[in-house]
């Protein structure tokens, strides 16, 4: 048993040694330069066609240029300022129909969750906390815990419905998001959601979120 442990120890020590050693192959930065590589500004010695000209693919010459079509197909993320929001639009009324057909079987007809038990509660405008009380007093929902409306669009489009993720059209996503925002009393029932209007929606709990202040001893 001792022997096996000693072997494992040796193996792990070997792993550690290897990892601290040089990362570059012959002709590329030497071990003594490895610290420099950690700095974002450090540039490797280029090999291949030309350091600046067309066809240069980095120090190792691996990979290929991405085509604009490839990027357009996969680049589906939406940022808080609305970057990435696609054309299209939808209203809470349209969203109600889609939600009933494609979402309510898990999230409940009013977005109250619980079908099955692990499904998210989507609609609840009451605070989940009570100042001074160390125990949460309610579920965290789109209405009381999501800081950006654009995130709802981004998430619904990429991950929902659970059984057919990514199957909603952009219009359908705008509509479902409009319904969810309306149910959470964030937009009116006639409000149309599109790339311009959704980016302007201010979520009520935007200021709830603070960056983690650690590392520092938080409990002393």
């Amino acid at each position: 048993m001792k022997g096996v442990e000693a072997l494992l120890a040796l193996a792990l020590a070997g792993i550690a040694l290897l990892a601290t050693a040089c990362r570059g192959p012959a002709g590329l930065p030497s071990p003594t330069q490895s610290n420099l590589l950690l700095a974002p500004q450090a540039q490797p010695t280029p090999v291949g066609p030309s350091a600046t000209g067309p066809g240069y693919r980095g120090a190792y010459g691996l990979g290929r240029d991405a085509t604009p079509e490839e990027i357009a197909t996969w680049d589906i993320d939406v940022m808080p300022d609305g970057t990435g929001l696609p054309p299209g639009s939808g209203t809470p009324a349209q969203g109600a129909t889609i939600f009933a057909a494609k979402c309510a079987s898990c999230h409940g007809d009013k977005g109250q969750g619980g079908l099955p038990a692990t499904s998210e509660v989507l609609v609840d405008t009451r605070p989940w906390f009570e100042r001074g009380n160390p125990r949460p007093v309610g579920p965290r929902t789109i209405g009381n815990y999501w800081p950006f409306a654009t995130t709802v669009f981004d998430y619904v489009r990429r991950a929902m419905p659970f059984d057919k993720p990514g199957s909603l059209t952009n219009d359908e996503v705008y509509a479902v998001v409009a319904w969810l925002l309306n149910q959470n009393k964030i937009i009116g029932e006639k409000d149309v959601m599109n790339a311009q209007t959704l980016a302007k929606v201010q979520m009520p709990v935007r200021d709830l979120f603070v960056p983690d202040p650690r590392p520092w001893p938080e409990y002393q």
Partner: protein
Amino acid sequence: MARQVSQQEIDTFVRRRGLFTRRQVLGGAAVVGAMALGGALDRLVLAQQVSEDTTRVQGGPASDVSKGRSQFEQPKRTVTTAYAGIPQISGTDQSQLVGVITPSDLHFERHHAGIPDIDPRRYKLLVHGLVERPMVFTLDDLKHFPQESFPHFVECSGDSSGHYRGLLETATIVDTNPLYSNSEWVGVPLEILFREVGAKKEARWFLAESYDGAAMTRSVPMSKGYDDGMLTYGQNGEAVRPEQGYPVRLLLPGWEGNINVKWLRRIEVSDRPFMTREETSKYTDPLPREGKARQFTFEWDAKSVITQPSGGMTVRGKGFVEVRGLAWSGRGKIARVEVSTDGGKTWGLASLAEPVLSKTSTRFRYPWFWEGQEAIILSRCTDETGYIQPTRNQLLLVRGESNYHYNGIQAWKIQPSGTVVQTYHEPPLQAALPTHLAGLWPLTPDCGLV
């Protein structure tokens, strides 16, 4: 531990080494028959498969792939939470494991949309955004880059979260620490990839996106990529397991599990975070007392747990017990582990198994003589930054009943019968709370605090 050998044992040994008499063989068969009638069918089956004396028969043949573990070893993950009928979580049972490496097939699972089945020949990774050269890499490309390997833990952000509210006495380590595992990871340093595509100076964050049904995304500071982030394709000597992100997983040593995006398909470099669902409405720590939510908690604070003896196990009797456990820190190496066998009144230093490495499991061991009385055993670790693992009450006082990133001291109670149960070694928090808050802490009888 040693004891005197009985005459009967010597007889048995001699008999096994020699020839059986006809009477002995028949007698043995009668005993086996009685066991079967008594319902011990399992034992009968085993008895048929296991040779009485392995030194006198040829064993099984060599084979191209192992048939697996000894038939007597059946460690298992515990499947827990299902979403829409599909299990998405299975927990590692560290009480069944030894050493520091979690066997790959026992590494915990947490999926957001199940395990995608990815053909490595069709795999591609797109890297774009604030880069000079938007590029696509195949798996072969990635494997051709300079390689790096390290043992690192992966711990789900929600591991041990039951402790915020309180766990029952019946809780085992699968309830307290199910979502912690440790593997050797092999892959490409992210900084090499960033240089390859020419990440621009204004780049501060990158988005990591998955091939899974949730196309799960997280924003990661570029600095972590330059520091020690990796794109991994190897785990414990072989390809990354499908449930761990085959063929390529983002590995950010020491950081909460969720951000180690599995089945990686896209990296988009940016000057700001993307504010995805998993870094806003999830994986943020609610601080209910202040009505705030902590965002971008990445590193795991130092944490330890005694794995043996632990909840649900039985200490075999008065006498020597080696207390064994694991300690780890998202900020570096473990400097020290202390063990208490009297509920925290006194502490002793545990020995640490070498080598002690950064952001990976460190096995600790502590010799103890159990007198047979009720005993509460604890472990408390300190990492190389000087950070000391807190108690549960320390965490609760600052955070309230939060949700993620729990790293408090874990206590086990050994009862005089030898059975081990989950417990809390500190007084109920009501007493520790300022008077004006005590009434606001509605303790429930089932939460283990009272």
